[in-house]
């Protein structure tokens, strides 16, 4: 490949850097806040932002894979709560050791995901309806097994995963960054994950091209469920408590972040890194609001306006 060719391919690649837009928005947002008050970009604020978003970032990784393949998962918030509660109940009521309890929590998440996948892929039921059902079901089961009360006072081995530090970073942050990084590389470059772009682009054509569509969908829902479970466990470990209403409404925040990050409900596009930037933007709004002294009740309106602006800009950009 000649120099000119490689330059051209580099130029082509950079214009296709789909995350560029949200990246610039994020930079501008931060810069404005930093101009307003230079304390904004201090270590404690950044730490708060990262700690707030780490659960979302983990769930967003699974959600991105799903959206790229044309899927959808409303059950992540409930699954996070259910898995944490399963682990909590096992540890506190059944005195199971924490690694086993945590493993059980993850397996429960994976199982809910796989059931979602079976219903969507094998029975052909709409993912919205399917995961709406499993969202309610998982939340209900969480209340049932917990009796409506939380569990807390977990062993320190479990809590270390939520409160410990490694190289100066709190563990949940570290775990989420690792998952985002690994997830991004896999979705971008790995042949197994890359099939999702084809499924999301044209499911029938993907099947006719020899892609095992059903198997892929099962995996995606299972993957999303497992990551939601992990997020729920880390959250419970950080607070040293599992509560039945944990993660309520998280699914919508995660989907918002993923769409802000460039994915589409029509499938076929999006990256994990983009979704992470979306989470970052979402997580910055809350501290930004308190910095500007606007009042917390503005948060939802700002997020909503931002989501609509993003999708409208995207549509207008594509129309040209």
């Amino acid at each position: 490949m000649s120099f000119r060719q490689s330059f051209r391919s580099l130029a082509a690649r950079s214009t296709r850097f789909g995350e560029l837009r949200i990246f610039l928005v994020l930079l501008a947002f931060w810069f404005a806040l930093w101009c307003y008050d230079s304390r904004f970009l201090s270590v404690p604020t950044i730490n708060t932002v990262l700690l707030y978003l780490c659960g979302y970032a983990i769930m967003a990784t699974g959600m991105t894979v799903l959206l790229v393949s044309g899927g959808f998962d409303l059950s992540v918030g409930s699954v996070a709560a259910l898995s944490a509660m399963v682990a909590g109940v096992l540890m506190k009521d059944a005195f199971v050791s924490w690694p086993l309890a945590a493993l059980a929590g993850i397996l429960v998440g994976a199982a809910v995901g796989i059931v979602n996948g079976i219903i969507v892929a094998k029975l052909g039921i709409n993912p919205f309806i399917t995961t709406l059902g499993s969202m309610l079901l998982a939340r209900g089961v969480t209340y049932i097994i917990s009796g409506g009360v939380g569990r807390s006072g977990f062993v320190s081995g479990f809590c270390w995963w939520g409160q410990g530090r490694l190289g100066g970073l709190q563990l949940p942050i570290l775990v989420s960054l690792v998952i985002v990084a690994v997830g991004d590389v896999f979705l971008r470059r790995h042949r197994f994950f890359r099939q999702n772009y084809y499924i999301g682009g044209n499911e029938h054509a993907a099947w006719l091209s020899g892609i095992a569509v059903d198997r892929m969908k099962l995996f995606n829902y299972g993957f999303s469920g497992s990551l939601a479970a992990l997020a729920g466990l880390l959250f419970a470990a950080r607070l040293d408590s599992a509560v039945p209403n944990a993660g309520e409404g998280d699914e919508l925040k995660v989907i918002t972040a993923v769409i802000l990050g460039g994915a589409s409900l029509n499938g076929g596009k999006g990256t994990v890194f983009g979704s992470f930037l979306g989470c970052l933007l979402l997580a910055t709004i809350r501290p930004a609001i308190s910095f500007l002294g606007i009042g917390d009740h503005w948060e939802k309106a700002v997020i909503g306006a931002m989501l609509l602006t993003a999708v409208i800009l995207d549509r207008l950009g594509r129309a040209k």
Partner: protein
Amino acid sequence: MSKRFGSIAALEEVDFALFPGQVHALVGENGAGKSTLIHLLVGALQPDSGNIFVGGRLAHFRDSRQSVRAGIAAVFQELSLISSLSVAENIFVTRQPTRFGFVRKTELMRRASGLIDSFALDLDPARIVSSLSLAERQVVEILKCLAANPCVVLLDEPTSSLTHREKEILFRLIERLREDKRAILYISHHLPEILELADCATVLRDGRAVGFLKRDALTEPNLTRLMVGRELDDIYEAQRGKVASAVPRLAVTDLNCPGIFEQISFDVGQGEIVGVAGLVGAGRSNVGLALGGIQPADSGEIRLDGKKIWPESPRAAMAAGLVYLPEDRKTEGLFLRQSIRDNLVAPQLARFAGKTGFLSESDIDDNAAAACRESRVSAQGIWQAVGRLSGGNQQKILLAARTRLKPKVLIADEPTRGVDVGARVEIYQQLRRLTAEGASVLLISSDLLEILGLSDRILVMRSGRIVARFLRRDATEQQIIAAALGVSIASALDRASSKDVRA
């Protein structure tokens, strides 16, 4: 009535006029500007300069509703029917008879059957569109456009998926429109149709009108010369005159699928092209779908290179070496929003992955560039979205993606549907190259000339059975039509001539 257009990138200073009671054909290769022209006429696009006159009055169409009101109606290549509604509801989609805002069902049905009867068609207005064949849908599409009682009718590739008999129905319909003194703009790649139907023709090339032919100058050599800008002596070039090799590559024995096809037995030799002719609904595609693992058959035996296989998914069929080239490139074949390069590697991601499963982007790029070169795809680059390409280029991409799998047998279902002459020639060359490399091709096609021009042997199907087999050198068009219709040659000819009398 006259229409003028100014220069936009895709179309430069094209002038032409449509007259009532005349069929004006518009021909040209991919990207010659035909689609742009139609979009201008229906108001989907606005010209940068130039004017449109309808009935002597200057018209400006800002959107399609205004053009409909001016009396222009278009039937596009892509069908625009709502498949969950009935024929009648589709025909009168924007003008349903109502009382107090409620739809009057019986009145709707009455009007629909009135319209259908006026063209002597056999169609139940209450049927749901999703249960109709592609050809019937095309007819409904045209009826829908006629419901607005337009003075100008634009037909874009209306026959691209129709069989002989269905085309006749369509031609009768067009004949009626001509008698009704409507002006018709007929766009087609199918030169024989144009010769049969058109009163005059405008040829577009690279966005310019390069020729206008009156009825008496309307001949196939004239048209092709203008379209391609070079002589196409014979699209189907020299026959190889080769006899099937002794060893069959693919041997199918007694393949059955109750109600769809029965007792299908044939073989395809190495490097051979076997054509499957027949009417739509004769089960040709279904045999292809069964072999490709898409709709597996019920019973029978499939042997590939002597080894028994029974593919139950496209994936399994591909792994065995049986590759199906889908009929409908847009819904079944391609990922329209994705790039050329991503489309080309879709069926074989594994080939570009290392041991760890990570893909080599530069290999994918190189592969795409090579495929585009070989298939002579004209595009801005390998990153262009496939949906932006012309039909011919899309089809080349789809074929390239499948042939790069190095199939043992390629099952090509209507490989040149809706594709112009230039791209057609290149697709034929690609199929020939494939056979020269030792692969075999099962060619399913409604285009008789294609079947006759490409095949080494020809099978004819009717009502789910193979009713005739020919060697290329023995087959004639009449024989194949007669076998497909299930009549003797004499009566087939008879039918054709009696039709001429009627016309």
